[in-house]
């Protein structure tokens, strides 16, 4: 069977959009930046890149993108959030009322590892990705403090979940787009392909 062709959107309101576009293309799928509702309607899956979560949340709200993004999982269109994207996907953000997509059954802690001077990178074993481990870059990163049992934990740092999956949602506290390793993106692209096959089979 030939591979299902999918178009992955990268939310281009603010953040490291270019790196995600490059990572998706390197992993063998089509990638386009998304700034408007019209552009959003054209894609099979969406990546929310690294950036500032308060900024991106406000822009989603102001430009009428929050509701259509929120509807994505129910339309069998997966979402992958990295860092800021993980924060925005979470239903609960500790101590914050900032605007969010809020579709994943997790509670997230912002700047959980400390301020910028505490940012780090390390080798990270990931469930479902064979050795070598993923080189994970954490920048003012969040982690998940609690999750619904339905949420699959794919990787942890000091026992804190930093890569999780729930249905059509994938969230990473680190930045796979900042390295040349495309395996985490491939994981997401497979989710999008599978979801699309499910959609077209109906």
């Amino acid at each position, binding site marked *: 069977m030939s591979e299902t062709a999918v178009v992955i959107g990268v939310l281009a309101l603010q953040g490291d*959009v270019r790196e995600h576009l490059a990572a998706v293309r390197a992993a063998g799928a089509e990638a386009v930046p998304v700034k408007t509702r019209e552009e959003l309607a054209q894609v099979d899956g969406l990546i929310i890149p*690294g950036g500032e979560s308060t900024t991106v949340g406000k822009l989603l709200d102001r430009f009428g993108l929050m509701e259509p993004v929120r509807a994505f999982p129910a339309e069998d269109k997966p979402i992958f959030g990295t860092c800021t994207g993980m924060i925005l996907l979470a239903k609960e953000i500790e101590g914050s009322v900032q605007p969010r997509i809020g579709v994943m059954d997790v509670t997230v802690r912002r700047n959980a590892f400390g301020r*910028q001077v505490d940012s780090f990178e390390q080798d990270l074993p990931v469930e479902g990705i064979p050795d070598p481990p993923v080189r994970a*870059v954490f920048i*003012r990163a969040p982690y998940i403090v609690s999750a619904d049992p339905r949420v699959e934990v794919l990787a942890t740092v000091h026992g804190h979940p930093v890569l999780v999956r729930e249905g059509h949602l994938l969230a990473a506290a680190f930045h796979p787009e*900042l390295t040349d390793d495309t395996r985490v993106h491939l994981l997401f692209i497979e989710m999008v392909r599978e979801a699309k096959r499910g959609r077209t089979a109906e």
Partner: protein
Amino acid sequence: MAERSTWRNKVGLAEMLRGGVIMDVTNAEQAKIAEEAGAVAVMALERVPADIRAQGGVARMSDPEMIKAIMATVTIPVMAKARIGHFAEAQILEALGVDFVDESEVLTPADDRYHIDKHAFKVPFVCGCRDLGEALRRIGEGAAMIRTKGEAGSGNIVEAVRHMRTVMSDMRRIQAMREDELMMVAKELGAPYDLVQYVHEHGKLPVPNFSAGGVAIPADAALMMQLGAEAVFVGSGIFKSADPARRAKAMVDATTYFDRPEMLAEISTGLGEPMRGLEMNTIPEDQRLASRGW
């Protein structure tokens, strides 16, 4: 196993700020307004450049108390300025836990020959430039982000445009060159050879390239983004205007939709008076901040 404050961590934070607006703030209340408007970071300083220019005197690092108050108020990254060459100020800012240090020509230089060895720090640095040679020298010293100098506190975009165009056209020129011409260019620019090679190969700086100095209205932000800036610093432009909260929000929106004129028209409507601004020929040569730095 875990490595802290790697080069990738430093440049990575700069990458995360792309497409955003970094706003000068002088107290916690302004920082809150900036965050509410959607700023990606704030620059904590005691006086905005327009006031430094008006009041004169030696401009130094800000009082740690003020920086701490701002850090306690917002969740977005907090930057602060150190004088050119004043590595002790930078050490203090790092100890405070600021997220980025701006080795800035807006403050009075502490060293008329050397800049700070920025590789020696865990905290990332941003530095200003007027041309490509200056940008690559700063990156060679360890800057993880470059911004145009523009003319801070002028409300006049002309210098930032000149600096951005100079950097971008020098990079296009180098990209088109033969390998055997690069050493002479490195000599002419006064730039590290390996960084000239990087530009030749990639057609861009190895760190994000932001714009600063003179951005006053949303169209200024859009102009700089279209000229190749990857994000925008706004100094005096917001809190020297009639309606800072509204203008701050408009700057954020314009930086995102810099390539959509219909949206920019909407975003630019009804913002009240912008800061007044200065004609360049009314600023004496010896009072131009952009000429500081070596």
